[in-house]
């Protein structure tokens, strides 16, 4: 951690909740991106975190944009810069899971298919947190939200693999609980041309109902139980990242129950529900195992 740049681009005084996972992720992401960066931010928690007009807690240019258009706006900025001969600026779409997995997926898919020169980062706090904890396509099975008061009935949409299916040069997953891994992945993505996608699992104490001091712990437990998997797909080649690599062996994974029991949003899960989640995790891992071994 001592090796990370000391310069801060997310400044003190931002408006995030205490213990906000996305803001930790944004801090490290911006350290990696540096000064020559333009952010596009659709409606999401970061719309608030950055601070209200006329102040801003972010030290790079930001273009706030409508919910469904993070990717297409970033494509337009990249094209606009290129038309003016500027090609050394990283254009980054920074969007939540609702803005990515749900309302923004069309624009994202279009940009990826065209290979537009943008870095799209989804910070995934697994629900519409900014509007007050409503379920999204990225909400896991069983989770309480205000629109799934008895728990969500469907499993989480696997966005990173959907993006990988577009054949883009770089897809990675990350977590603010593993900041060096996150930093390295953003750095790598910056060096690649074309559409790059990073999906950050970003614990949210407010929506997940855990104490705000436990964000890193919850993030780590997600990885340790295999609920979240850290990997990279570079030019089609799948590679598990160091924290997740050993977990290919099921015996090395902690039971999902350990992760679930840390969070109030899973409070009403029965043993059967947890078994459903565990079975889903095991199945997801079977797929990753196949990719890993090829």
């Amino acid at each position, binding site marked *: 951690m001592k090796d990370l740049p000391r310069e801060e681009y997310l400044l003190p005084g931002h408006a995030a909740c205490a213990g906000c996972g996305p803001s930790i992720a944004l801090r490290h992401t911006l350290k990696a991106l540096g000064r020559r960066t333009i952010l596009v931010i659709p409606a999401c928690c970061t719309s608030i975190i950055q601070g209200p*007009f*006329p102040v801003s807690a972010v030290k790079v240019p*930001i*273009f706030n944009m409508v919910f469904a258009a993070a990717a297409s*706006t970033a494509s*337009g900025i990249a094209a606009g810069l290129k*038309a*003016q001969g500027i090609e050394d600026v990283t254009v980054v779409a920074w969007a939540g899971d609702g803005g990515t997995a749900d309302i923004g997926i069309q624009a994202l898919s279009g940009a990826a298919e065209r290979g537009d020169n943008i870095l799209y980062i989804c910070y995934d706090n697994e629900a519409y947190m900014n509007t007050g904890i409503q379920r999204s396509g990225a909400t896991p099975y069983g989770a309480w939200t205000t629109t799934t008061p008895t728990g969500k009935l469907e499993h989480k949409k696997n966005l990173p693999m959907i993006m990988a299916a577009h054949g883009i040069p770089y897809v990675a997953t990350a977590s603010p609980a593993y900041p060096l891994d996150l930093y390295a992945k953003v750095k790598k993505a910056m060096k690649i041309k074309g559409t790059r996608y990073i999906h950050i699992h970003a614990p949210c104490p407010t929506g997940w109902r855990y104490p705000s001091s436990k964000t890193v712990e919850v993030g780590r437990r997600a990885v340790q139980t295999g609920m979240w998997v850290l990997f990279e797909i570079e030019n089609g080649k799948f590679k598990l990242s160091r924290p997740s690599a050993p977990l290919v062996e099921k015996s090395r994974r902690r039971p999902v129950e350990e992760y679930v029991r840390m969070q109030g949003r899973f409070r009403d899960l029965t043993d059967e529900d947890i078994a459903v989640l565990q079975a889903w995790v095991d199945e997801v891992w079977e797929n990753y195992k196949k990719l890993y071994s090829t």
Partner: protein
Amino acid sequence: MVQVAVKGETRFLTGNYAAAYAAKAARVQVVAAYPITPQTTIVEKISEFVEHGELDAQYIRVESEHSAMAACIGASAAGARAFTATSSHGLAYMHECLWWAAGARLPIVMAVVNRALGPGWNIWTDYCDTMAQRDIGWIQMYCADNQEVFNSIIQAYKLCEDPSIQLPCMVDEEAFILSHTSMPVRMPPQEEIDEYLPPRKPQWKLDVEDPVTFGALLSPAWYMDFRFMIQEAMERVKELFPKVEEDYCRRFGFEPKGLIETYRCEDAELMFIAMGTLAYEARLAVDALREQGIKIGVARVRMFRPFPKELLRELVSDARLLAVLDRQISFGLEGALATEVKSTLYAMEERPLVAGFVLGLGGRDVTYHQIEEIGRKAHEWMLKGKVERETTWIGLRGEKE
């Protein structure tokens, strides 16, 4: 051979090709486009220009109109000159992005081919698509021929990029009547257009050397003032556009048409108020009615937003009745042009009567005979001093012409 007094190349172009050639002549730097009938030939032609190296632009073949407008917004915010074109459902799909473009004060120019909305599917013309976008901070110009399509797009960039305006503009042409009908279009020499319309100098842009957060949360303590600034810029458009147009016309040898173009209105006691090609169709009716001794003219509202209310009041001050032709209906009220006209007249101490006529929806044919008939009915009401029906639908099935 006859010596041509004016410079440039004249080609036989459809309205859509006129729009495409205008975008090229304006040296747009980013085009983001999605196909929709009957707009498609605009963006097809531009893609040819780009691929043949005739236009140096980034061309983003987006997956939707929502993304087309978003990409134009991004490109324009980055400092580039952006262009797109759409129609009907495509325009409706852009709606929230249209707000964003205006609120962000980005001088994007868009050609809109006016087409009806479904259901049922209808690819023919009416103004319901653009009229539904009249309240969002976009300048709206409605064309009546293909030369005007070409001229308006270039003039629109000049207008919109002016530091005192900084608003987007839609240049509207009617589906098929203009979009797919060929007419002679004279295109001034490129180097002279370049002098008229130099490269864009943005007032602000996304710049890593000067990081600014744009579009952040705007509280009630701020929001309203930003909206007032848009309104003020709109008011300035009415002052600036005639100058922008006169400059263009003086350089290139065209006749300025102004915010409202009139035909035989000087001594008119009865006037048609119309837009687009309907106004030109109405000229034939005016000629016929004049022969019958009716003092009638036609005023074509060319700019609908901002609405040139001061000029309209001036033009109709001696008229006794205005017959407003609307190729649009605002369900539950009347045609939008009729509403604007009535609202404009209210400030006059003595004002003409107004009769609204809804016609030509979804491409329903409108003949000058029908307009002549409207003129006779309106004349009858004028003599009686009473409009017997506030809004009359013309040419419904089962009615005799």
